[in-house]
């Protein structure tokens, strides 16, 4: 997903092999309107717009300025109940959604993709306004990935096949892949549109209904997509979208007795709470996509220029607000000094500023809380003895801008090497041997992503096979194909999203066995 941005940002890299990914050249990006109108700020239930039952609202903030964009309805437990009821009703036996041909679900998802594509410019503007990510990235990475995700899962709708099973005895046995039911989905603010699509695509392809809570920092684009869901013809109640807070609306979903499954993307801390709530309520199925402290291992034989560029993008992309961020850059001793030097040079070139400016690489962090948390990590790094090579401070006098920051001489036991910072802060660590770096890379509770840069085929495979992570990139970083699964080992999550694997989380398998008079092969 991030590949396109990466390519644009690195003209130094050899161009030819990357062209295929570079669909969206800077020239093709239209000039954005930095003040897009907000059309939808209410709860979307049963294909209708509702105020919160409590009439409460919350402000959503433009992180570039700290100013309020607008007030948004604040969904609470009572609204979640209403949404679950709508979703349950849309899921009842004999409903239009349950009786719909699987191929028709695919057609609807394709139409949704077409509608998002039609409104790509507006959606990217709204995303930039609400989230702060550079418009060029929202337009050329986030929105196209949304479209691809919806189209990909559209195709699966009539291909998610059960099997016939040759069991022993005079029986005939087959499996049906049936939807789980009402799916609760709680999504984060770092890729608001994309995380919404990752959740909608597989759940709708497999025939579930949805109650989704969008992040209170970034509710606007998801609500606009809700209007498209209605426009393209999904029956009422199939998708319900609640804007609200985690500890109220989010908690209500995860402990709801009538929600059959919950999918959450966010912090490991909240992941714990959600799985507990699921256990304490109705044992709903849980999938989690949580944090990471992903190692990016650079061997001495790697192509230095590419490795520096990839490591830079691995951590700084999206203001460092990526669960997959390459936040522990392990560099082999013999090239360490040169690598650090070059990484600093690269970080200096990073343009921080107004995200609507097409030259901007880095916008603000999403909100004040994140902003302060990141600055706290930076000062802990300094205190614990890491060497601040570049940045380390605030980058503007308003909004939540932080300088691209590079730490050298980072040790494994420092907080900045153990905890997820979720900001534009690079940690560069030194290693000597392959066995050592594998050991250190795996010495974490996280296991989301990892990468290795080397030109040696044996080392590439040995290391990638040894890393305890759900995704390993070799000589690349942040390459997300909608066709490939993504998810975490260990405390980075449960289950997989994307690819065919992503369908499993949204499916109950039913085994049907029929007694027959006489079996024949």
């Amino acid at each position, binding site marked *: 997903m991030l590949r396109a941005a990466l390519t644009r940002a690195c003209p130094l890299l050899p161009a030819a092999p990357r062209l295929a990914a570079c669909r969206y050249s800077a020239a093709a990006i239209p000039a954005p309107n930095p003040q897009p109108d907000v059309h939808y700020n209410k709860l979307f239930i049963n294909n209708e717009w509702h105020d919160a039952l409590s009439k409460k609202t919350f402000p959503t903030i433009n992180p570039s300025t700290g100013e309020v964009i607008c007030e948004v309805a604040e969904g609470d437990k009572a609204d979640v109940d209403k949404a679950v009821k709508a979703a349950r009703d849309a899921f009842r036996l004999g409903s239009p959604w349950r009786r719909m041909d699987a*191929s028709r679900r695919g057609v609807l998802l394709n139409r949704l993709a077409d509608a998002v594509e039609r409104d790509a410019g507006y959606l990217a503007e709204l995303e930039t306004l609400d989230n702060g990510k550079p418009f060029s990235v929202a337009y050329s990475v986030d929105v196209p990935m949304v479209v691809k995700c919806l189209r990909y899962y559209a195709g699966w709708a009539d291909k998610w*096949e059960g099997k016939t099973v040759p069991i022993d005895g005079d029986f005939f046995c087959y499996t049906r892949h049936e939807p789980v039911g009402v799916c609760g989905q709680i999504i984060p603010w770092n890729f608001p549109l994309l995380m919404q699509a990752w959740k909608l695509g597989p759940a709708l392809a497999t025939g579930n209904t949805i109650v989704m809570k969008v992040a209170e920092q970034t509710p606007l684009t998801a609500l606009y997509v809700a209007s498209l869901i209605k426009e393209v013809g999904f029956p009422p109640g199939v998708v319900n979208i609640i804007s609200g807070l985690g500890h109220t609306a989010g908690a209500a979903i995860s402990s709801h007795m009538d929600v059959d499954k919950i999918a959450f993307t966010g912090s490991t801390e909240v992941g714990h709470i959600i799985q507990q709530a699921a256990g304490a309520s109705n044992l709903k199925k849980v999938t989690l996509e949580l944090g990471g402290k992903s190692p990016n291992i650079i061997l001495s034989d790697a192509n230095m220029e590419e490795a520096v560029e990839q490591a830079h993008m691995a951590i700084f992309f999206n203001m460092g607000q990526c669960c997959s961020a390459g936040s522990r850059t392990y560099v082999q001793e013999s090239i360490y000094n040169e690598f650090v030097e070059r990484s600093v040079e690269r970080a200096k070139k990073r343009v921080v500023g107004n995200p609507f400016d097409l030259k901007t690489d880095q916008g603000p962090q999403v909100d004040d809380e994140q902003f302060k948390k990141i600055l706290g990590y930076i000062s802990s790094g300094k205190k614990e003895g890491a060497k601040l090579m570049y940045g380390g401070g605030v980058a503007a006098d308003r909004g939540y801008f932080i300088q691209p920051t590079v730490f050298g001489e980072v040790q494994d036991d420092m907080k900045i090497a153990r905890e997820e910072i979720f900001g534009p802060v690079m940690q560069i660590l030194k290693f000597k041997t392959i066995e050592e770096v594998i050991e250190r890379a795996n010495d974490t509770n996280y296991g989301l992503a990892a990468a290795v840069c080397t030109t040696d085929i044996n080392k590439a495979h040995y290391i990638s096979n040894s890393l305890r992570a759900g995704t390993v990139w070799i000589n690349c970083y942040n390459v997300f194909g909608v066709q490939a699964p993504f998810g975490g080992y260990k405390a980075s999550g449960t289950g997989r999203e994307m690819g065919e694997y992503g369908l499993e989380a949204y499916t109950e398998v039913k085994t049907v066995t029929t007694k*027959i*008079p*006489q079996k024949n092969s």
Partner: protein
Amino acid sequence: MAQNGTPENGVPADPAALPLPQPCRITDIKHTKLFINNEWHSSAKGKTIPIFNPATGDKICEVEEADKADVDVAVEAARAAMKRGSAWRRMDVSGRGRLLHKLAELLERDRTLLATMESMDSGKPFLQSFFIDLEGSIKTLRYYAGWADKIHGKTMPVDDNFMCFTKHEPVGVCGAIIPWNFPLLMFTWKIAPALCCGNTVVIKPSELTPLTALHVGALIKEAGFPPGVVNIVPGFGPTSGAAIASHMGIDKVAFTGSVEVGQLIKEAAAKSNLKRVTLELGGKNPCIVFGDSDLQLAVQEAQKGAFYNQGQCCTAASRVFVEERVYDEFVRLSVESAKKIVAGDPMDPRTSHGPQINQQQFEKILDLVESGKREGAKLECGGHALQDKGLFIQPTIFSDVKDHMRLAKEEIFGPVQCIMKFKSQEEVIERANSTHYGLAAAVFTRSVDRAMSVSSALEAGTVWVNCYNALHAQAPFGGYKMSGNGRELGEYALAEYTEVKAVTIKLSEQLTL
């Protein structure tokens, strides 16, 4: 395909409330040349084929006739499009899916035109063209559009210190030879999986019905497929068909048509370059009606099986076996129902029965009808040409047909229902399987046990239980025995259009720092 026409669930429930589509006026056929490299070509020899409307006998237009030399040009174009590093080979698989989707949308846009053209050219009733042929074609394209980026290789846990993975690669240049009974549908059944897997195609539509295929050629170009990816060469079997089957530059040939020609094609493939062969051939399909079935349903479905598309279906229910105790009733209801069939102008929305495709088929069918009368089958209704002029044959029912009669052994490919009597389940299974064909079969019963036992015992690639002609893009279709090789549709069809490459890499653990 018959089932594809039903209104989809979740869409306005009352189809009668929707206005029926009307055929459009076609005064001029735009695309009559060979489609090669996204361009329109005249045939090398300058020959043309006259195209007739079987309902009126009027000539519609002349179409360029491809011959061996033209096939060579088409294969060259397809080879060039398949060259390593070409736009087509380097395209993201999801991009291939997008193109197939666009093509589906263009068919949807031109749906009325295509349905009208199909009816003019093949004689099938317009509403059937619109709701069945076009619906099926569009759905097939959409279905395979979705597969393009889901054809997964695997990684294998091989012994010792190796890594092993498979890649599913396109076969290369795929030849396709398609029949006249479902011109557009067979066209999409061939190109959709082939393109989805990344192949290039040289396709020969039937010389009797090339018009819709050529129009779709223009749509293929409009959708944005690179030049040479699809090449369309209308012509005759013995010339351009034979050239495809024996071409040294074609990697695979897929044929739908008669068993005789299927044998020629497999032979030609073997003699030339051992190209891969898939065949979808004839059938003499048993439709078995048990006494415990819903008889009304069985009569309707069996009749649809016999008369749909004027009986010109490889899946036609051409041997109806009815259990003794309901036999007379079944025959009576069938005759009653057959008499209600409205034959006439295919463009008239009331028409459900059009003309046969041409004089040769017309005569062959009447000859078989005569043989039935001679051999002692009982003619219950029909049995004659319908009018003095044209190629219409009355829906015809024979009862008391015996297994040894020509009617019960040969593929009639016309509107002739042959009803036979049986006593026991074992007996009917034996008789149903006693044929070289094995394309489709059906069983009507309310008993779960019987449905399972009989469907399991029948030697056929498709078995319908309490339905007939229920074909879907998602489900595989193809023949046992001499009804064919390989499967079309569904995920299974992808295997026919891919080569599997196993890559094994030695992993050394002696790592130097």
